[in-house]
């Protein structure tokens, strides 16, 4: 087995054949067997396979985008289950973007945030309030709901509003560290939810526990976005943008500053890194992705209420980050996909199957033990197992490797451009 893997690792053409065969087989099986969730998942996991190939980054990206934007929707589109497949894929995308945002805060900057879903809620309500008749209650001017075209503007507004709240939260909260920070952010998450739950008096802003119904669907050139298969593409584009931004930041001066703060605050400061500004930046950038996806979520569900933003959601996102690997972008994507699919597909399918069994009288399983209700239990088990046996996650974070040739090719002037470095080797 190991020998085969070695051969495979060295031979790019072989890799190309394997992955092409894999994609074609899973594509055909999903195309023909529409009801097979397994085929759908197998086609999705071709991306994981792609991750392990040794192709250049550009090739991987092109193949990945083709699979996601053409092959997956095409293969799924042949039967009744099309919309439910796309619904799952859309939610996976939303959660990946949020997990990537949290990854900046927790994974890179090392600030444990247990109330991350608050920013998602802020994004969702930002669009929800103005895309329903709700805004008429308190806005002195304008006609609401705003038309579906405003959705695209709100993507940016949601992003900015969430970032501002990230900073507002950060200013008082970043005075505390570690466990204390976790508790304070947990409190913040709950406070936001409770505020949305109660802000129907004295002025009705959020419509309280009733929630905001019939949010305007987005519109683009007269086309209304109603179905998951359409939102899928919106999410895909935002997700690609998110991954792009996260990657750029991670390997830049800012990303290094975040990691330095995570590793040792005092040393980071001594190296000239402004502590508060760096941490606030992490909060703001992380929150902004979440806010943007909140807007999409509101438009997709066409209904926003406080129950979608509970502590369990925050914990779910944290589990995605820990499961995948803190600080690792591919890891977090995998973690988010696994947890979301486990939640939406595997657990519900298992519940359905068990229900059928008990209906036909084969076995009897009490309602309280149905897998769909064991979500928290399963998350708990995952967290404990990973903390014990694989604390670095499924795909651990990797440090950038540098190429010695590139490092050596510079001019030979020393720190201040004064001396030739060659003759001042310390051991020399």
């Amino acid at each position, binding site marked *: 087995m190991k020998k085969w893997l070695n051969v495979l690792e060295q031979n790019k053409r072989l890799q190309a054949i394997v992955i092409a065969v894999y994609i074609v087989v899973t594509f055909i099986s999903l195309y023909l067997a529409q009801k097979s969730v397994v085929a759908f998942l197998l086609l999705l996991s071709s991306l994981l396979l792609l991750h392990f190939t040794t192709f250049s980054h550009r090739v991987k990206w092109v193949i990945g985008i083709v699979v996601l934007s053409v092959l997956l929707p095409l293969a799924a589109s042949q039967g009744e289950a099309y919309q439910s497949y796309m619904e799952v894929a859309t939610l996976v995308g939303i959660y990946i973007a949020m997990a990537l945002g949290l990854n900046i805060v927790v994974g890179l900057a090392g600030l444990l945030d247990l109330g991350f879903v608050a920013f998602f809620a802020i994004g969702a309500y930002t669009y929800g309030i103005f895309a329903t008749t709700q805004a008429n209650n308190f806005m002195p001017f304008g006609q609401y709901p705003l038309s579906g075209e405003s959705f695209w503007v709100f993507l940016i507004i949601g992003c900015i509003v969430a970032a501002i709240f990230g900073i507002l939260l950060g200013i008082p909260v970043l005075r505390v560290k570690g466990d204390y920070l976790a508790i304070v952010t947990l409190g913040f998450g709950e406070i936001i939810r409770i505020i949305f739950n109660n802000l129907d008096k004295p002025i009705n802003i959020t419509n309280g526990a009733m929630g905001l119904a019939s949010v305007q669907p987005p519109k683009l050139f007269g086309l209304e976005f109603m179905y998951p298969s359409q939102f899928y593409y919106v999410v895909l584009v935002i997700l690609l943008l998110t991954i792009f931004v996260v990657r750029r930041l991670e390997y830049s001066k800012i990303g290094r500053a975040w990691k330095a703060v995570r590793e040792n605050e005092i040393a980071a400061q001594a190296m000239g890194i*402004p502590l508060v500004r760096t941490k606030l930046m992490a909060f703001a950038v992380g929150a902004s992705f979440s806010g943007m996806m909140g807007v999409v979520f509101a438009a997709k569900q066409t209904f926003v209420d406080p129950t979608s933003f509970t502590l369990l959601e925050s914990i779910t996102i944290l589990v995605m980050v820990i499961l995948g690997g803190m600080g690792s972008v591919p890891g977090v994507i995998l973690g988010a996909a696994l947890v979301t699919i486990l939640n939406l597909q595997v657990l519900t399918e298992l519940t359905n199957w068990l229900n059928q069994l008990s209906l036909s009288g084969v076995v009897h399983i009490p309602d309280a033990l149905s897998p769909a209700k064991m979500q928290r239990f399963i998350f708990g088990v995952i967290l404990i197992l990973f903390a014990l046996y694989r604390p670095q996650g499924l795909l651990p974070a990797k440090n*950038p490797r540098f190429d010695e040739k590139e490092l050596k090719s510079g001019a030979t002037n020393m720190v201040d451009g004064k001396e030739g470095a060659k003759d001042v080797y310390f051991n020399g």
Partner: protein
Amino acid sequence: MSILTVKQLTKQFGGLTANSNINMDVQKGSITAVIGPNGAGKTTLFNMVTGVYQPTSGDILLNGESIVGLKPHQVAQKGISRTFQNIRLFGAMTVLENVMVGMHTHLRSGLFHTMFSTPLMRKEEKEAKQEAYRLLQYVGLESLYNEEAKNLPYGAQRKLEIARALATKPKVLLLDEPAAGMNPKETAELTKLIYHMREQLQLTIILIEHDMKLVMEISEHIIVLDHGEKIAEGTPDDIRNNEKVIEAYLGKGATTAS
């Protein structure tokens, strides 16, 4: 010409006076040592100079300008860099990245340049990498550039701290027990490195050290602290023969040993 002046510096932690009325004048381009028994307040003094602690009273002047009240990162930007007694590297980052973090304040490209990966930003990053590598060559760690910092042997970690501190392009470099845990060969190399840094990079170096051989060999000026107070200062010869210092710290052997 003095580059760093400390005036009447006092630090109290509750009822404990860690430093009391310390005066110090550091000449530009000199090597100054701060010595004294454990708990004498040497590291507290360093922490106040680098902005980690705020002094209870007194003043610290860098080139005649007060740096009291500045945050640690602002002090670093002013040109004071340091290493730590208990090594504080960025353990999970590579050796080269550790040095690159030190260049933080000298990299200009902000969010915009990073997002769009502009030519300016790429050029700057490339130069930063190369300079970091040169700094590693300077301290003799270039072969370990892709290792994680936490996996380095102890002596190498100390050298890496120096390389990282140099990356901030300091005028004044504070070394907190740079030779702690080093064997005699490594200490000899370190001595050479400190000389080199002063000569080639025109640095002013202040160090805390317990290795008296190293201290007496390289420092031009020595300040002795005991119980938070300055009990003596002067050239190595003055200090070696100072009654108070012998009693408080060096012991009787010091006069005869060399």
